[in-house]
């Protein structure tokens, strides 16, 4: 089974794992708020599972699962009443750290015409996110690399990142759009969490991934998980892995893509694509943004706004007097050749963690795995 899970999968037997009976789950909320954390967790909102403020297990999506298809996301009933019996929702952790829209600084002009700049006062709350998936954590790792580990540290992201605690929940029920096995990023959360849980019928196998996670589990004084419980958890994750039906043709498509810049498939996908930017907006690794001014009506002050952008907008490739990628063919090709191609040069791996969001949340159901397969020489 470990080979299916990929080399990143830790042998769970080497970890100390606790057993959190279902009826004691709410103690986790207590422990986190005692440490000053505001909890965010999965909830059913507007026909989807989204991360939002949460204070007790009663608000979790009990007995709910997600049926995902290209261009379609539906919640249905799941037998057994589990709380994490679904794959994912429209957003990973990205909006919590890389804000969809935020003011970076403000500039004001006084009566003498002097300008003064004030950075946005960022005092982010301490947030504990409960329910992060393996793919979410792999994406978080990539966003950290982009925003924190380059030549310039992004202050706004860094401030929020320092205050984030992550309770991961391993996937036992991937969606039909998931392909994290093929990218090597799931369905078991391998690293990047403070606490990881695996849900069984009567409770959770819990393990710590950081000192603070260990302290929290320590204060809750759970018994050690039994060998059977650990085995059941491992098997549930392995079964989840086996259920995945999608895959990318290779973990490194860089050369294939750049050798096929004139492939007819680009025209084919451009005829279907709306150039709407939903794929990049839901993608947990996409980081493109634009910066604009929001001047006050009297012209004496202006806020400097940053907001999510996308390689599917015209402004993304606009340089004075010229739009480099005016047509959808070039925009889609930019998305794929960057995400699956030049990310390897920039970040040492592909930018896809196999979450499948761009497939389900594409209004016309364009499937990145299918497009990559076609460009790779196979497929329809």
């Amino acid at each position, binding site marked *: 089974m470990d080979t299916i899970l990929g080399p990143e999968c830790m042998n769970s037997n080497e970890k100390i794992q606790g057993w959190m009976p279902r009826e004691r789950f709410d103690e986790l909320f207590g422990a986190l708020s005692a440490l000053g954390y505001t909890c965010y967790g999965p909830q059913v*909102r507007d026909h989807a599972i989204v991360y939002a403020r949460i204070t007790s297990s009663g608000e979790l999506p009990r007995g709910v699962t997600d049926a995902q298809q290209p261009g379609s996301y539906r919640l249905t009933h799941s037998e057994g009443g589990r709380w994490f019996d679904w794959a994912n929702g429209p957003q990973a952790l990205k909006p919590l750290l890389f804000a969809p829209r935020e003011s970076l600084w403000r500039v004001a002009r006084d009566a003498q015409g002097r300008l003064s700049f004030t950075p946005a006062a960022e005092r982010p709350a301490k947030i504990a996110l409960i329910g992060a998936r393996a793919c979410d954590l792999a994406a978080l790792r990539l966003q950290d690399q982009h925003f924190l580990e380059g030549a310039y540290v992004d202050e706004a992201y860094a401030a929020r990142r320092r205050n984030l605690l992550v309770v991961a929940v391993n996937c036992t029920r991937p969606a039909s759009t998931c392909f994290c096995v093929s990218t090597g990023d799931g369905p078991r959360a391998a690293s990047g969490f403070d606490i990881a849980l695996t849900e069984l019928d009567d409770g959770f196998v819990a393990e710590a991934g950081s000192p603070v996670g260990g302290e929290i589990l320590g204060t809750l004084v759970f018994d050690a998980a039994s060998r059977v419980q650990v085995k059941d958890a491992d098997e549930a994750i392995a079964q989840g892995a086996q259920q995945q039906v999608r895959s990318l043709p290779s973990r490194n498509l860089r050369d294939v893509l750049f050798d096929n810049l004139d492939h007819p498939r680009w025209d084919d996908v451009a*005829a279907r694509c709306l*150039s709407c*930017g939903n794929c990049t907006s839901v993608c947990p690794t996409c980081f493109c943004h634009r910066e604009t001014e929001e001047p006050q009506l009297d*012209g004496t002050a202006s806020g400097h706004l940053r907001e999510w952008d996308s390689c599917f907008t015209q402004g993304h490739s606009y340089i004075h007097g010229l739009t480099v990628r005016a*047509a959808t063919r070039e925009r889609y090709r930019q998305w794929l050749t960057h995400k699956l191609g030049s990310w390897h040069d920039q970040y040492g791996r592909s930018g896809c963690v196999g979450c499948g969001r761009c497939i389900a949340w594409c*209004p016309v159901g364009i499937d990145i795995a299918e497009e990559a397969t076609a460009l790779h020489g196979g497929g329809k």
Partner: protein
Amino acid sequence: MNPKPKIAVHKFASCDGCQLAFLNAGEKFLELAQLVEIVHFVEAGMVAPDRPVDIAFIEGSISTPEHLDHIRAIRGHSRFLVTIGACATAGGIQALRNLADADEWIAGVYAQPRYIRSLATSTPVSHHVKVDFELWGCPVNTPQVMAAIRQLLFGVMPVDEHDKVCMDCKRSQTVCVMVTQGVPCMGPVTRTGCGAICPRFGRDCYACYGPAENANSLALGRRFEGLGLMPDAVARRFLFINNAAPVFAEAGRRWSGADD
């Protein structure tokens, strides 16, 4: 000190709703009156349609023979001419008559059709005079109008906000209604500016802000068919408030069978 720039707000064939972007602006409207001299704006009580202005805002489409002369006269004494709203920018919902026999409609609606004197078509201002900037929307909103004025006062052309509604929909963390409920949302072909207000209230966008740049209306129309809409219903998604905007008109013709 330089005299304050002068502005005018003119009305053609329209419902007056776009003028509310000024009138409902509250304190902002008073602030605006400090920055500019409002020389003509009938609904606000200023009537001087023939005075030269720096910025003329035009609400409404060109729909009667008098409108043709009137819009040319305004162009002649305005430095910048900015259309506000779907009517002035794309012909408005009343442009639906361009697809029908206007006389027949007039005869069908009015008891005394001989009192009605209108053109056979309703057309955007840009078909008749040079337009410097277009603000889309049905109606336009206060922040949109104020942002355009601010930029013109700075001496630059306003930024054309032409991305798709989907971008703002996602930025506001709205859950997509098309993907979760299968309703025919026009967001992927529609210009941003409303803040994705319809999806935020759980319903599908109906394209009141007109076409976005690089709008693929044919791909979206095909998707609507896939969601189960009959061709006529697909056509009606496009032949609505901005029916005469070329990419919507094209999709409308295709699904209404007018292309066959």
